[in-house]
């Protein structure tokens, strides 16, 4: 139904359109958060790609905010991109207090998908346009207060950007 041959990205084995039937929406599907984070744990960053207007969405979702279409498909994303904007969280939420100051950025991946994440660098080392690479960290190594996690989030990895 969907032709991904013109996609610059490597699509996953799931090249069908997004979940239109209730039975498609399971925790195994990367169109749900458990499925998305399971794939991320295994090293695959999956976005939803709209087959109508090519908007890329992280995390994946069943409909495109760009044009309203539900003809979306999963698309594995490049790990590299550039800093669109950045700042430092000097007074973070209490679960992140000991990590302060936290450098965060909005990054546009080379696919055009955009997401916010921490940057593993001091604020002064970061500029708009910097090239960064996404890394996936085991939640236990990140040192966020475990009380922050909801029960279903405990195993979910945390992403962070490194300057290239």
């Amino acid at each position, binding site marked *: 139904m969907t032709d991904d041959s013109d996609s610059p990205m490597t699509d996953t084995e799931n090249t069908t359109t997004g979940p239109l039937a209730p039975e498609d929406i399971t925790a195994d599907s990367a169109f749900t958060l458990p499925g998305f984070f399971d794939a991320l744990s295994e090293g695959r960053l999956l976005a939803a790609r709209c087959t109508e207007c090519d908007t890329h969405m992280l995390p994946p979702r069943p409909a495109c905010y760009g044009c309203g279409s539900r003809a979306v498909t999963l698309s594995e994303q490049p790990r590299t991109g550039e800093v669109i904007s950045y700042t430092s969280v*000097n*007074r973070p939420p209490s679960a992140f207090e000991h990590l302060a100051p936290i450098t965060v950025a*909005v990054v546009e991946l080379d696919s055009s998908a955009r997401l*916010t994440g*921490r940057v593993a660098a001091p604020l002064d080392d970061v500029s708009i346009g910097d090239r960064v690479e996404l890394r996936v960290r085991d939640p236990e190594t990140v040192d966020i207060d475990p009380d922050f996690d909801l029960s279903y989030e405990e195993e979910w990895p*945390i992403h962070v950007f490194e300057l290239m």
Partner: protein
Amino acid sequence: MSTAHLIAVGSSPLGKTDLPGRDLFSKALAEAFEDLPDPADVVDALYVGAQSERYENQIMQGTLMAEWAGLRNVPAERVEACAAAGALALKNAVRDVRAGVHDAVLACGVEKMTAGGTEGATNALGAAFERALEQRSGITAPATYALLARRYLHETDATERDLGRIAVKNHGNAAANPRAMFQQAVDIETVMDAPEVAPPLKLYDCAPVTDGAAAIVVANDEVAADLQGRPDTIRVAGVGSAANNLAVAERDLTFVEGANVAASTAYEDAGVGAADIDVAEVHDAFTVCEALLAEAAEFAPKGRGIETVEVPGDRSAGWTDVQINTSGGLKARGHPIGATGLLQAVEAYEQLTGRAGERQVADADTALLINEGGVADAHTVATVLTAQ
């Protein structure tokens, strides 16, 4: 369709107070009903804007506020869209009155933000951001707006000092507003020397944590005429709202499109254009928002929103003559989240009825309110109000 009028307004003291939320509401209600019969004899329903139950561990705010107003067995609902909750309460009240569902409705908002200290407010506000990727990266409200500000400074000629001048302007306005939390002017050096919260935003770029409540009576023609027979009511001419994406990363950082849609919808509903607006209260939760919203409301050319601080004659071509945030804005009047949208309407009421004292804008007869929730235009409600 009936016309909706704002016939009475009230607000509590704003700031860190010794009163819990329900008592702040009582203060606002008492002012609004000073010259009116009991609320139960006037209004048929209630909407209350409240951001979070984390502050006072209390949901069911609709029921509670109705009870404290002496209303029983009437529709009474809490509405939530983070900081846009107040305008959402007003919007729902206006919709009901216009549709003839109710003759008069109480729109109110309340927030007891200081209950858990700064940390409690940071954590409560954090719930407004996208959870899976953004909250789990440790962001806060100042940080998300700093992402907008950094990009704005990158794409335009604006400087950090230009943003600081917006805070100076709003503190100056609040100095003439007896309702304001900070009734004192500040100078630009104080603003520039203040600690960084989330660079490029510094302390004075950020609206304060505020306790407060507001209450407004919205009524149809008949109730407005019966109760008052007085000229000091104003008319709701247009309403618009829009929800943009929740994640800040997925939005245009320098064009708040949802706010533009909401304002355009409100203008169209009212049959006015941006140039007709004399006074505007826009959601300056952070200084950069006032610049972005001046552009989204089509008061200012793209990239020139920072000229909000200039008197109309000194602004670039393409700017209207609007006066923005005469109340002092969220920055200096105060920002009790769920009440803010209604406090904006209180200022419009005072400006359009000639009650604004030293900060009165001459011949003001049309006002625009823009109230936002989430980061910037994750949710926007825009309202056009006119003098009768």
